[in-house]
C-alpha cells in the first residue's frame, strides 16, 4: 500500500518511523502515539488526493505499515483510527454543514457526552467551510486544498489532547486519594506518576512502589515520587501480598485498554490486581484515551504477548545455569475487567463496563481492521 504514498520524502518519513518502531527505538504508548501523529500530519500535508476515499486509503496504508512494523504498540493503530475518525467528522461537517453533528450520534450516551469539553471542539468549525468539490476534473487538487487546513486543525486537536493527557488524567487526582492513605503502584508509568504527584499537592499520603522485576521500573518510579516530596517505600515484588492488608488503593498504569474493559499492562499488574481483589482493595487504572484499543484479548486469557530479554532475569554471570534452564521474561500481563474497578482517563472516570462505548465513540467501526 506504500504505493499510495507517492512522494518519497513522505515515504521516507513513514519508513523511518516503521523502523524505529521495529527496533524499539521508540517505546511507550504516548511516545509512539505522538510520533505516529506527526508522521500522519506530514503525510496528509504532502499527499495528493481528490476525494475522501483516496485520503482514507492513503492514511490506512500508512497506518497498516506502521502497525505491521510493531503490532505490540497498540497506540499506533489507535492514533491512526482516531485521525481517520476526525477526518471523517471534519469531512461530514464540511459537506453537510451542521447536519453532520448527527453522524454517529445515534447513541444516547453520545448525547450526554456532548456536554463534556472535549466533544465541543470539532463542532463550531462547521460554519467556515465553503462548498467542497470532490473529483473535480479541472482542478483535481481543489478538494485537497480546501480540506487540508481543516484536517490540520483536526490533527492539531488530537495532538493537543496527547500533549495535555497527563494534566487531564491527574486533574481530579485529589478526589481519588485521601489523606493518610497508603497507595500501591508498580512499574514506571508517566501517567501514574503525574497522577500521584498531582494528588500530593493536596493530600499527604504514602506510596508503596513495587520494584517490578525484571525491568525494575519501580525504582525509577520511587525515585521520581520521592523527589516530588511523596513519602515512598520501595518494596520487592514478593512483599506484595504481605503489605496488601494495609494498602487502601492500587493504582496501575496501562499499556492498552481493550474493548472488553480489560487491559494490557506491565508484568506484575495482574499479580497486584489479583492480590488486591483477594483483599477487596480497589484497583484504579490511570490511562489516556489514546490507549483505548478496539481489540479483544485474542492471544491467551493469561500471559505474555511480548517477551523481554531473558538475561534480565538470569544474567550471564550465572554461566553454569544459563544453558540448562529455560528463562521466561514476559513483558505484559492481561488484566481481566473484573479485577479493575475504574479507569481514570483524560476524559473522565469510567468503569470497565463502559469502555466498549468509549471505543465506539472514539473510532469508526470500519477502521477496527486497518
Amino acid at each position: 500500500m506504500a504505493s499510495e504514498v507517492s512522494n518519497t520524502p513522505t515515504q521516507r518519513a513513514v519508513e523511518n518511523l516503521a523502523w524505529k518502531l521495529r527496533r524499539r527505538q521508540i517505546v511507550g504508548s504516548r511516545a509512539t502515539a505522538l510520533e505516529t501523529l506527526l508522521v500522519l500530519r506530514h503525510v496528509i500535508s504532502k499527499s495528493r488526493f481528490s476525494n475522501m476515499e483516496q485520503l482514507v486509503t492513503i492514511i490506512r496504508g500508512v497506518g497498516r505499515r506502521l502497525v505491521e512494523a510493531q503490532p505490540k504498540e497498540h497506540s499506533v493503530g489507535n492514533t491512526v483510527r482516531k485521525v481517520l475518525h476526525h477526518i471523517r467528522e471534519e469531512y461530514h461537517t464540511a459537506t453537510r454543514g451542521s447536519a453532520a453533528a448527527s453522524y454517529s450520534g445515534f447513541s444516547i450516551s453520545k448525547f450526554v457526552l456532548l456536554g463534556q469539553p472535549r466533544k465541543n471542539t470539532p463542532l463550531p468549525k462547521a460554519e467556515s467551510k465553503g462548498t467542497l468539490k470532490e473529483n473535480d476534473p479541472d482542478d483535481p487538487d481543489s478538494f485537497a486544498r480546501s480540506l487540508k487546513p481543516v484536517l490540520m486543525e483536526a490533527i492539531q486537536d488530537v495532538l493537543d489532547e496527547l500533549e495535555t493527557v497527563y494534566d487531564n488524567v491527574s486533574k481530579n487526582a485529589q478526589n481519588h486519594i485521601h489523606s493518610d492513605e497508603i497507595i500501591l503502584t508498580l512499574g514506571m508509568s508517566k501517567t501514574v506518576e503525574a497522577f500521584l504527584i498531582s494528588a500530593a499537592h493536596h493530600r499527604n499520603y504514602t506510596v508503596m512502589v513495587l520494584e517490578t522485576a525484571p525491568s525494575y521500573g519501580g525504582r525509577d518510579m520511587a525515585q521520581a515520587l520521592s523527589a516530588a516530596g511523596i513519602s515512598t517505600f520501595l518494596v520487592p515484588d514478593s512483599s506484595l501480598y504481605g503489605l496488601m492488608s494495609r494498602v487502601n488503593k492500587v493504582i496501575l498504569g496501562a499499556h492498552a485498554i481493550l474493548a472488553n474493559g480489560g487491559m494490557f499492562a506491565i508484568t506484575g499488574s495482574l499479580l497486584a490486581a489479583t492480590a488486591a481483589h483477594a483483599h477487596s482493595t480497589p484497583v484504579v487504572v490511570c490511562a489516556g484515551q489514546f490507549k483505548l484499543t478496539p481489540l479483544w484479548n485474542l492471544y491467551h486469557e493469561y500471559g505474555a504477548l511480548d517477551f523481554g530479554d531473558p538475561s534480565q532475569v538470569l544474567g550471564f554471570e550465572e554461566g553454569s545455569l544459563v544453558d540448562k534452564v529455560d528463562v521466561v521474561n514476559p513483558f505484559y500481563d492481561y488484566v481481566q475487567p473484573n479485577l479493575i474497578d475504574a479507569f481514570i482517563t483524560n476524559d473522565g472516570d469510567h468503569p470497565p463496563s463502559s469502555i466498549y462505548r468509549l471505543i465506539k465513540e472514539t473510532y469508526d467501526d470500519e477502521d477496527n481492521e486497518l
Partner: protein
Amino acid sequence: MAALELMPAAQPALTTTEAPPSTSSSQPSQKSMSKAERRELQEKQRAAKIAQKQQPPGDAPNKPKSKPKPVAPQNPTQPSGADASRSKDATSAPTMDAAEMSKSRNLRIFSHFGLPKHGPGLKGDIHPCIVRLALQFSEFKICGANARCIATLTAFKTVIQDYTTPPNNTLSRHLMTHLSPQITHLVSARPMSVTMGNAIRQLKLEISGSDIDMPEQDAKDLLCQKIDDYIRDRIIIADEVIQDLACRKIKDGDVILTYARSSVVEKVLLSAHKQGKRFSVIVVDSRPLLEGKELLKALTSAPPVSWTLSNDSLLPPPPPIPCTYALLPALPSLITEATSVILGAHSLHSNGAVFSRAGTALVALMAKQHSVPVLVCCETYKFSEGVMLDGFGKNELAPSHLFRDISTSSQEPNLEILNPLYDLTPPSCITAVVTEVGLIPPSSISSIPMALGRISL
C-alpha cells in the same frame, strides 16, 4: 553512598561522619529513635536556615542537578538516622519539614517490623561458637528455618559440653541461665525463627527435667543425645517421610511449580527424580533473596554422573530435570502450565495459615485461582500455636545493606527501601500440608501437635 557525601562547597560542612550500616550498634528502641529523630530534625532545620543564608543565589539553579539532597546518608532499614551525632549537614529544602513529618509517620507504620539489630557487643560470656553462628545468621549465610534450627541446636551442644555447673548449683537449675544470654545474642543477630523457638522450648523442658543426682558429664551427654534425637526425629527423619509422601503426588509428565528455595522441596524434587519420574519444574523467584537460583543449581546438577544401572543391560542416565526459571511477576503466565505447586514453610499456625518466604502467598493465591493444587511441605516441629491473620503483623526486614542493588543506592529523603522477608498464606489457598504424619488439610493443623504429644524431644 559516597556520592551523597558530595556537598556544594558553599555549605557549612558540618561533621559528616557517615555511619556505615553495619556499625550502627546499640540502636535504641523505636520510641527513643523517634525522639532522637525529632532532635535531629530540629538541628537540621537550623542548619538548613544557615545554609540558606550562606548560599549565594547563583548556586540555587545548580542544585537540583547535583542532587545534594537534604538528608545525608541514611541506612534505609534504620531510617531514623538514630544517632544524632551523625551527619547533620542539611541543605535548604522547603519540603523538608513535611518530608520529615511523613517519614516519622511511615516509621510508625512499620515500626513493629523487626529491624535487624546489630550485635550489641558481647554481653555476658557468649560462647565463641554462638558468636560465630550469630554472625552467620546476620549475614544470611545460614538462612532457612531448618538450617537455622539445626545450626542452633548443634551450637548448643558445644555450649553444653563446655559448660560446668558452678558450685552450690545444679545443672537442671543453672544451665538455662547460662544458655539464655546465648539465645539473646542469637536473637539480636536475627529474630528467632519459630523452629528455633520450638526447639529451645523442648530443650528447656529437658534441662529442667534432668536428674539432679546424675553426674554432670552424664547429664550433659544425655542432653546432647536428646538434642541429636530431636534433630533426627523431628527434622531429618521427618524430611524423609515428607519426601516419600510428596513424591507419591508427583506423576510422570507433571509440571511442578515452586517458589524460592525450601530445603524440603528440594529434597522432594530430587528424590522424585531419583525414582525415575519424568517431570519438569518451574522455579519462581524474587528479590531480595533470590534463593531460587540455589534451587536451580541443585536441580540442574542433579544426577551425579552415572545412573547407568543395569537390570539386564546398561541404562542411559536419566535426563536432568527440565527447569524453567522466572521472576515472580511472570507467575500468572506460568501458573497455567503447572499441574501442582509445592511450597516450603517457615512455620504453620494453628488456623492453618502458612508463614513463609515473602511471595509464597502470591503463588498460592494464583494457584488457587487456576485450580492448581498447592502442597505445603512442613515438618510438625514448625507448628506454632498462635493464630496469625496477615503477614503484616509479624514480619522481619532483610538488612538492606546485604541485598541492595546499585541502582537503588542513591538516597532520596522521602524514599525508603523495605525488604520484608515473610508473608502469610491464608489456609483457603492451601490444598494440603505434607507433614511426617501424613497429608492433612490445613484446617486440621491444630490437632496435630497434640497427636504428637509435643513433649518428645
